[in-house]
């Protein structure tokens, strides 16, 4: 919403400075977005006479001018403008002036050997329009020595406010003035608006053709004819104001409607009465109807749009934009002025669908003052008669002005309760009344009737807002929020929240970089990871690559790693801790921690190095990340199983599944499947893990934080080595499990210290060497006992895995 200072002062009697007004506007919620004060910016530019303009001795295209800038002292200026000539009046800028059109500051210069002290300016150089034809050529009556901006009427600062959608009443300069007046910065000018007494009935009949349930689309439609008008340009003062706020003057009749749209927040429409055939019908558009609107574009309408039609068809899109065919131009002699009320939601819907942004739509979709529809029509009529002559008819009314009946029961204490500030009842009362609220009753509770222009005020909280925003939120002293009386015993975070945070720290500690990638990915990628189902597809993705909610964090990291590789960083270790989606229900959302290593980005380091080059990443690297994560999270891993194989996106022979029993899979790790890489057009060696944090077992709840007693045996442990030959596909875990099972208590640790295939081992078999640690508890083991245990281990492993002891 834009307006000029002088326009505001039409409605507000005030001595306040521009700065004070601007500050007040922002303080009461009408945030000033910007102030354009051309007069201030152009203060050094003065009107000057060119005394002489001689050819420059050293340049064909330049002239050496002597200029009188008002003090009678000729100043020498070198000028390149073709229109510079002796006797003309133009605009002069002395050295030291900033030139907005050129973004330079002038200095005394020497141009081709001739000194130049300043500059004669074009409109473009002043930042006014884009005429580059030459310097400004002012009429003879322009007073030499005065500021150009003042003479040219540019000294009316333009203020732009950022209007919040609830404040329809301030889409009107009068409304803004009322808000300002409530702060005491000035007085609202209330000129009486006596009704216009027209001659005779308006000859154009109006029909509201709506079904009963559609009546709300147009509660009121008022129309008046003014006969015998002369429609030319509107007066200069009106044009100047319209131009200042960015509107193009058209002709007096149209300008009046635009003027009142801003002046009073009352959009109006004018029809050329001679172009209207028969009566006007307000109705829903028929499917397929169209209109060439005033912006010259053709709009196809549907039955959702409300239109004003005559015998020729649609003439105007209600509350949004009129049509070209019945518009007013210089030939108009009889004008129909329309002032109506429309359903804000219908206007918004139609405006959005048609893509029309107009000042009328802006106001109607926020809600105009219903009580001002008829006074607005009268005000417009008076302006038409004043500026264009003619004689008005009476107004035709279809529908009626809606009644106001929304009274709020308001205890004054509500202000203290919600805002925490003590204001005097007198101050609160004055504020509400100056904003137009009607207060009845006295004492602690009063009845408050909001004014017709404040449909946004619904209840007590709204009245509190009105009072404190005019009082100023800065008057509310901050008061501490009472602190809890005890120290928090329970953690502020849930287990999952803590695990999410810890997971990030743990993975970053393994040299990985935390990525945050988009929650939506390309459908093709989603499908490769078990997603891409219709319940997780966006109806309106912002781009094709952002179409489906991600089923896994892996595809996003894969894309990110490839992008980094394309930029010249092939060895990257990335991780993300974030949400994944299995369905559109809250339960379908899970929190996962996922790591991806590419190229040689191993935990120990990447790339070539004097101490030995890093090898390509592999499944074990991913497994190490996954297990380190589980350890860092303090997940009880007693029941953790690692099973060969994983989902389709992993290499079938180089992947594993992490599970607490077959029904409780918590994650996967491994090398990426070559077919997946091909499908996603990815290159390089890639290994990843993904763990669903929600699925991990919770820490055991124990009644005490004390750790179990530490028992240190006095006796030395002994170690025995065994090398087993087993078929290649026997998992090491089976050997370890069998060995452990041989002697549950005595065996306190088993390591796999060698793995061998090749000479000396049968084809298709491997040798797995383990070191078993035996920890006697009560007495030293005898050789015979140790032999017995060893035999038991060999027997057990052989039985469970078919192993033979390596010869």
């Amino acid at each position: 919403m834009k307006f000029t200072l002088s326009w505001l002062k039409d409605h507000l009697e005030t001595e306040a400075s521009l700065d004070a007004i601007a500050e007040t506007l922002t303080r009461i919620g009408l945030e000033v977005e910007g102030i354009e004060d051309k007069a201030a910016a152009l203060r050094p530019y003065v009107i000057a006479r060119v005394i002489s303009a001689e050819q420059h001795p050293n340049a064909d295209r330049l002239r050496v001018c002597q200029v009188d800038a008002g003090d009678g002292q000729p100043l020498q200026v070198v000028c390149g403008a073709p229109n510079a000539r002796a006797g003309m009046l133009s605009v002069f800028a002395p050295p030291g002036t900033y030139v907005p059109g050129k973004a330079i500051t002038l200095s005394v210069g020497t141009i081709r050997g001739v000194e130049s002290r300043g500059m004669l300016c074009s409109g473009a150089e002043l930042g006014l329009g884009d005429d580059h034809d030459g310097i400004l050529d002012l009429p003879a009556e322009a007073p030499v020595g005065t500021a150009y901006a003042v003479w040219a009427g540019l000294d009316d600062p333009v203020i732009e406010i950022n209007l919040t959608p609830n404040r329809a009443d301030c889409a009107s300069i009068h409304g803004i003035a009322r808000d300002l007046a409530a702060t005491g910065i000035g007085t609202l000018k209330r000129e009486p608006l006596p009704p216009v007494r027209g001659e005779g009935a308006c000859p154009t009949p109006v029909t509201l053709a709506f079904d009963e349930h559609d009546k709300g689309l147009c509660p009121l439609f008022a129309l008046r004819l003014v006969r015998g008008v002369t429609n030319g340009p509107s007066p200069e003062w009106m044009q100047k104001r319209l131009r200042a706020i960015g509107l193009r003057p058209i002709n007096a009749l149209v300008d009046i409607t635009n003027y009142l749209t801003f002046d009073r927040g009352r959009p109006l429409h004018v029809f050329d009465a001679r172009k209207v055939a028969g009566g006007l019908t307000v109705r829903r558009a028929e499917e397929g109807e169209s209109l060439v609107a005033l912006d010259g574009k053709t709009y196809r309408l549907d039955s959702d749009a409300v239109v004003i039609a005559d015998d020729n068809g649609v003439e105007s899109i209600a509350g949004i934009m009129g049509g070209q065919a019945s518009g007013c131009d210089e030939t108009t002699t009889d004008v129909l002025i329309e002032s109506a009320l429309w359903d804000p939601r219908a206007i918004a819907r139609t405006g959005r669908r048609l893509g029309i942004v107009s000042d009328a739509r802006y106001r109607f979709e926020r809600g105009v003052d219903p009580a001002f529809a008829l006074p607005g029509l009268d005000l417009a009529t008076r302006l038409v008669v004043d500026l264009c002559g003619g004689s008005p008819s009476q107004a035709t009314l279809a529908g009626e002005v809606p009644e106001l009946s929304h009274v709020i029961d308001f205890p004054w204490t509500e202000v203290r309760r919600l805002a925490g500030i003590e204001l005097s009842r007198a101050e609160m009362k004055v504020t509400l009344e100056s904003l137009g609220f009607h207060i009845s009753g006295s004492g602690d509770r009063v009845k408050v009737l909001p004014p017709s222009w404040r449909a946004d005020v619904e209840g007590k909280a709204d009245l509190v807002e009105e009072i404190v925003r005019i009082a100023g939120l800065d008057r509310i002293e901050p008061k501490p929020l009472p602190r809890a009386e005890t120290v928090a015993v329970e953690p502020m975070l849930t287990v999952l929240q803590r695990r999410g945070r810890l997971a990030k720290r743990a993975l970053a500690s393994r040299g990985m970089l935390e990525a945050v990638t988009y929650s939506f990915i390309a459908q093709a990628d989603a499908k490769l990871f078990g997603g891409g189902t219709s319940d997780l597809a966006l109806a309106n993705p912002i781009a094709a690559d952002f179409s489906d909610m991600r089923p896994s964090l892996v595809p996003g990291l894969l894309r990110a790693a490839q992008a980094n590789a394309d930029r010249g960083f092939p060895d990257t270790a990335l991780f993300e801790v974030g949400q994944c989606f299995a369905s559109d229900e809250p339960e379908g959302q899970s929190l996962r921690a996922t790591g991806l290593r590419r190229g040689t980005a191993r935990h120990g380091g990447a790339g070539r190095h004097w101490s030995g080059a890093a090898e390509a990443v592999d499944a074990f690297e991913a497994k190490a990340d996954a297990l380190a994560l589980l350890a860092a999270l303090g997940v009880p891993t007693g029941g953790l199983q690692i099973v060969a194989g994983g989902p389709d996106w992993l290499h079938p022979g180089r992947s594993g599944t992490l599970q607490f029993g077959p029904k409780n899979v918590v994650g996967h790790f491994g090398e990426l499947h070559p077919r997946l890489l091909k499908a996603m057009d990815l290159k390089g060696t890639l290994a990843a893990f993904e763990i669903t944090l929600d699925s991990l077992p919770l820490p055991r709840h124990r009644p005490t934080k004390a750790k179990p007693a530490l028992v240190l045996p006095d006796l030395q442990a002994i170690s025995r080595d065994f090398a087993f030959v087993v078929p290649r596909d026997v998992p090491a875990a089976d050997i370890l499990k069998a060995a452990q099972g041989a002697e549950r208590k005595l065996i306190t640790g088993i390591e796999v210290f060698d793995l061998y295939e090749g000479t000396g081992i049968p084809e298709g078999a491997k040798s797995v060497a383990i070191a078993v640690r035996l920890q006697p508890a009560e007495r030293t083991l005898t050789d015979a006992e140790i032999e017995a245990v060893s035999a038991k281990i060999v027997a057990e492993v052989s039985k469970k895995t078919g192993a033979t002891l390596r010869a």
Partner: protein
Amino acid sequence: MDLDALERDLLGQIERAGDEASLEALRVAALGKKGSVSELLKTLGAMTPDERRERGPLINGLRDRVQGAILAKREALTEAALDARLSAERIDVTLPLREAPEVRGRIHPISQVIEEITAIFADLGFSVAEGPDIETDELNFTALNFPEGHPAREMHDTFFLRPDHLGRRKLLRTHTSPVQVRTMRAGQPPIRVIMPGRTYRHDSDQTHTPMFHQVEGLVIDRSANIANLKWVLESFCRAFFEVEAVTMRFRPSFFPFTEPSAEVDIQCSRKGGELRFGEGKDWLEILGCGMVHPNVLRSGGLDPDQVQGFAFGMGIDRLAMLKYGMPDLRPFFEADVRWLEHYGFRPIDVPSLVGGLTA
């Protein structure tokens, strides 16, 4: 040979011994079972007591001195050998090592800033609440007092999922505010929570990405008011931006879910392109807030005449940009390793109020 000559001879040989082996040979030759000194010692047995009294100390003395000389020589040889080894054992300590994993790793600024925010609000007694990214229209809009036909409910502002077989369509939450309603419905006041999370809007340019992060705060009890809200936000901004004092400006504004509503600006300077808080003349908008709208309290199952409270919301990514100086929002989600290394945080830099938010 007399004892003196023998001693001179032995000590001379020991002195000249060049290595451990020849020294050992000398030891055996002198002190071994058949050694020259051992042989002399053997003669003591056959002597008369008088002879023994005279010769005993001489021979034993000889033995002790030879023994001592061998020990000393052995020590000297060991030292010399070590010196020789040490002078041969040299490494180039200037050779660069691989960077340690815990030095290479980085935490994303969004994670770091969420932890900073959480640390501050936890101190004020706020816990953390979360909700799903895929929301219902009811929780994202209706329960938050957005009227039917509000522009935010349109396809050009909000991401919708495809409608189900009943025509119901879910959406990606446009703000974290649905968690307010979920929290109110799940428990009774007093409520003090912050709600960080991902949010989505149909928007993309230098300062807008279709996905971003918000944190929302909610306090509901029997007395929380705007004065408390101002105090909480001022305390937060001082702690977050780590400055002694901040000047804040509360401007009345409009949000469907709060009444009264305000936007908050923080005073700053932009000298030399560097943003600083607690000084300067510029204003920077950082958050929106207000008293929870009575209709929202009702949506949450609460009586607006019995309880009251305030809510506030701010952009986490934006806070990160303001504090840590990233000029552009889009790279936050591009996982460019150069950006992550530059703007990310070390894994050991855990923000806390005890140790400081930043190192």
